[in-house]
């Protein structure tokens, strides 16, 4: 796992923990669902998560880039943010 991916996972974990959506000892798998199934974010929460990533990593992510496929699993979301960090 790259340094960026580890940082993204840390941010994701802190976002979910602040919302009581994740116990401390839960392992986030690459295949864990993010939007709807799995963790079960709704669309507004997903956008709040993007906002947290933008703030943490100094990114700007355009509206047109917010395809559903990036939010399907923890893995796809990490890759999406990672691509913006590079």
């Amino acid at each position, binding site marked *: 796992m790259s340094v960026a991916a580890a940082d993204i996972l840390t941010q994701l974990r802190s976002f979910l923990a602040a919302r009581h959506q994740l116990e401390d000892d839960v392992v986030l798998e690459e295949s864990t669902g993010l939007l709807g199934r799995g963790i079960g974010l*709704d669309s507004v929460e997903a956008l709040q998560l993007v906002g947290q990533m933008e703030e943490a990593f100094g990114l700007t992510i355009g509206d047109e880039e917010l395809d559903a496929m990036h939010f399907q699993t923890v893995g796809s979301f990490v890759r999406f943010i990672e691509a913006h960090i590079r």
Partner: protein
Amino acid sequence: MHDVAIPRSAATTPEMREFSSNDLYEIIAISVLAPASWLVPHRLWDFVSVALSSAIAFLRPDITRRRMQRLERCLDGRPIPDSLLSLRVRIMAGYMEERLQILREYRPGGWRGHIEMTGREHLERALERGRGAVLWVCPFTYGDLVVKTAMARAGDRVTHLSADARGFSPNACHPWVPTRFGLRYLSRLRTAIEDRYIEDRVAMPRDGALGYVRRVERLLRNNGILSIRAGRNGHRTLEMPILGGTLTLATGPPSLAQATGAELLPVFVIRRGPGHFEVVFEPAMKPAEDADPRAAVEDLMGRYTRLLESYVLRFPYMWSGWYQMRFPDRET
């Protein structure tokens, strides 16, 4: 109350059919009702709708019996002002009358019903706060057109958030499964009329892209008014206890209000008589202060459902959710 994993919208089904029997049923209904909507005076619509509905109930006793059994199961012993047969007929009559309104809008002069507003001060107070208002519109027959018309007459500029795919008949007895034909023609029949009364329509895209959320968040941060019909279209839904079963509702409206600081106002429509409606703005629902964001949203969902139930029991013929209710404990 529990999360349910259902598709965001039936519209996300990749293999959308070209045409369905429901489309055919809608075309037949429109063919029958369109001439009536143009030629029959408003004051007789109630008579026409009830007469047609009674005839259908009489001619299809097997379906009528099943519908009444369904209503009885939904109510689970709760008293209502009507008999089950009368309720069944009135639900159908409302279905027809709403279509008469929409089709009448295509006639020069349009539909000119009498609409009163109650509790509008709650909306004004919300806008004075400067953080926008989310109107959580009840899933009642007449709710779509009547609320938009009332708001437009009052000079309010409302943006409506809707599913990309919606039927001509969201209150039909069967859930409408989108078809290419339905999306191209039937949905357009309804939305073209509704769009006359709103500032803008934001559609949740079929591919699930989330850019629209930022658009509506910007609207609310600019003190805009966003209307959303309470329903199951959304990325996250909860199975909410209501009457003797449950109803699937998306968390979008409370979640949006929570995220933006907008006021969340439940809005209900009551039919007071032929061509006479009341639009009720309930006081803003405030999230619990000590709850985390997700718990606050779930609390708001529960309070909304209890409010909805109280309206349903008082105006049972208005509700379009009778045939969408589920009975998880008793399903086999």
